[in-house]
């Protein structure tokens, strides 16, 4: 579906509204990489998008209504991977949680580029790319990935919030 700019805006506002409602219900979406979320109350962590024997995926939209965020949680509830897509960036401090400082250090050692970032580190894998209106990102902590999960294949960007 094509949206003219006005309808795009309407869509954005609508998403913002839906999200505000979601956030009110779901304090768990603030869990970052390495944090635990309450997998027993799916709606508390965002909408349960997918459930597998060794992990679950919870989907939410950020406070600006622009970015869809998927959090991959192991059976113990630990967020081992994230993936997002949208017009703009999510709050990376919240998304990376306790790994935010490590992410920043690795980012500073990466080539400065406006539209691409690829971090291939044994402790933290990140790739973020795309034009400003359609940024796709994903990250995972290899040490936290449940056994048997092919994380590179499994962690895929969600549909854009706004398209």
């Amino acid at each position, binding site marked *: 579906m*094509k949206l*003219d*700019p*006005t309808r*795009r*805006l309407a869509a*954005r*506002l609508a998403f*913002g509204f839906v999200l505000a409602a979601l956030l009110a219900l779901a304090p768990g979406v603030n869990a970052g990489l390495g944090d635990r979320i309450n997998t027993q109350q799916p709606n508390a962590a965002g909408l349960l998008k997918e459930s597998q024997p060794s992990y679950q995926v919870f989907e939410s939209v950020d*406070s*600006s209504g*622009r970015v869809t965020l998927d959090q991959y949680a192991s059976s113990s509830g630990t967020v081992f991977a994230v993936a997002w897509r949208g*017009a*703009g*960036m*999510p*709050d*990376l*401090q919240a998304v990376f949680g306790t790994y*935010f400082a490590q992410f920043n250090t690795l*980012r*500073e*050692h*990466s*080539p*400065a*580029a*406006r*539209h*691409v*970032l*690829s971090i*291939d580190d044994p402790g933290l894998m990140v*790739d*973020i*790319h*795309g*034009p*400003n*209106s*359609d*940024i*796709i*990102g*994903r990250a995972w902590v290899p040490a936290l990935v449940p056994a048997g999960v092919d994380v590179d294949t499994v962690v895929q960007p969600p549909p854009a919030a706004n*398209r």
Partner: protein
Amino acid sequence: MNKSLCWAGALSATMLAVALAMAGCSSGGSGSGTPSATATLQPTAAPTSTATITSSATATQSPTPGPSPTSGPSPTPLAAAHGSILVVGQGGMAAVINPGSQVVAATGSLPAGIQNGAMVGLQDGRVLYTGGDQGGTALAHAWIWTPNAPSWVQIADMTTARTLHSATVLNDGRVLIAGGFSVIASTPPTAALNSAELFDPATDTFSAVAPMNTARAGHTATLLADNSVLVTGGATQNSTPTYLASGEVYDPASNSWTAVNNQMSVARGGHSASLLDNGEVLIAGTVLAYNGQGCGSTCAATDLYDPTTNSFVATGNLNTARYDQAASILANGQVLVTGGCCGNNGTPLSSAELYNPSQGSWSTTASLQVPRTGHAAVYLTDGRILIAGGASSASTEFYQQQTTLESFLSASSLPAIYANTLAVRLKPLASNQLSLGVGSNGYNFANGMAATLRVCAPNTTNCRRIRATLVDSGSTGVIVFASKLGGVSLPPVTDTTTGNTLGDCEQYVTSSVWGWVASADVYLGSQKITLPIHVLDDTGSFAPPPTACTTSGTFTNTPASFGGNGLVGINPYPDDSGLYYTCTAGSSGTCSAYSPSTSQMVSNPVAALPLDNNGSVVQVDALVQGNSQVAVYGMLTFGIGTASNNQPPSNLTLMQTNASGSIGVAFNGSSYPGLFDTGTSFTGFLTSKLSSLPLCQSGSPGQGLYCPANTATLSTTNSSFKSSIGTNSYGFQIGNASNLLSVPQGQPQNFALQTLGGPTGNFVDFGAPNFFGRPIYIALDNSTTVLGPGPYCAY
């Protein structure tokens, strides 16, 4: 005897011989250009329109009285090449320098023997040369040179014969002509002119305007942000001249001149004047510096003109007193002053200095390869400065700044010695084009693609030219740093409920910027658009950035960390996708989230064009020196199939994109999104594992990029975003980034790098090198074009 030998020698033929004998400033000696492989030159219009003082000292007086326009022996298509510069020397010789190929070609000459005229590049792309003197007679004649028919065509005369006058292009396109001498012979002594006139490019005619308060010749004339013109100093008459310390300002709106409230630190002739980013004018040098006579300890004094108080204020002293120097502003706002007259025995200077406006002081930088006086300096679109000609040199060189090195590098030679050199950058003749430079952008960036944009307060002639404006096909909207808009006040876009200014955070993948939204007139070529733009707060005058803006990447709210003074985003998407806020006023203001209406958002500049608004064509020349050269040049053309200069060829491959410009890319059986991205320095190609390309060693110059031992030739299958339409095989190369980026100590660096590559994850970013030698058509979302509806990408 007169002290101002180099400069005042022009005033009188009889004085000339004596001047040469005594001063030896410009004896037409050896043109010792050292052509080298690392030469490229291209300018953007320097906003400082200094009246170049021409010191005619060579004795090439060939009085051919008739001002019949003469065509050069070989008018050349080079004149229309990207980034070319027109150079005119004493005697009327003219040449075009092509910075990309480093070819210099003679073009049509002015009438033989002409000198001391004034030359400016008009807004429409033509070049105007006015007056001067020939065979001892001042001229009222004027000529127009056009890049696509490179000969000088005489037009209607000025109202008055003038030589050593000034010519200044106003923001409305007219040209202010002021002062000069109408009589060369100094017996009896004759006063300078106080008269002024305006050239109208619509009719190619001149008409008298109000005269200056004070007659002057050899003065400077500088366009200020508010479209008025500051003139300073100059000589009062043509024999044993006395020089002026006064200034005055012409206001075209009221057709009146207003004296500056006070005097400069020293009387000045042979000086330079440069418009600074903050709207002030830096004035340096004086002819009285010759042998230190006449000015003593004040010879090296420099002054700032402050338009807000209409007064001069002394600033730091030059390290070396000089005159007939060439001055140019750099991308970072510093002013480079080179050479001039005179060292011991009256020889030209090779020293150069930089003025730092934030410190108010001068520092010595690298020295010219060739001592020069009466030469020209032009800002190039890739951020370097071209230095050309001068009293005794046929050579050219350019000034380049790197992190650890400031240097002048020899470039192609002119066809002959061009004393008293005049130079202008050739702008596109078409209304829908901007010149592009790809290089360091003055900020030490590899493959920085940039243009110069003119930004004005809406419906006014209050404008600034923003050099080093990045061109980015991966984002949408016009961005300008507040510090570059000195003297222009843009009305903020406000929250309709509270009247507060809208804040905007633009997020890139690895960085973010913060500022407010303002309404502006922006010129894309000569077409005006009025739209909300993003003004970045590097002056601390707006609310601090919200946390969400500083944690999503490196906060790059200075031109140096951003890599440019602004950005023009030509992505297909309709708006900047920014995070919007409504903010209370002042530097301690607070912001809360805001949902802007479409008309409040920083919007697509291409879509805002009156014509040519369905997309753009990015065309950059191929490198001519293998995989690496200093810089390369090109053209950004607006519209697809809307004008004669943007007709797509029949063999174009068209790939439909999503609204953000992404295509589909297949490699080794897997599919990924991809983007043709002018805003990224390298070809971003998947991961090391997927591409089989090794990463550079940690700590090497290419850290984080790819470093194959041998340059890899690669091929992807590109197609539409979600279909097989336009499926094509696309070839490119990735080389060793550490080799490309490593610079031997003290050596100059190349900034246009064809084979720079690095990892991007599950994405292919066809960055700036992919545009070299390959025109790429980018159609906007929801657009209509001759090739069908946008959005698409085609090559």
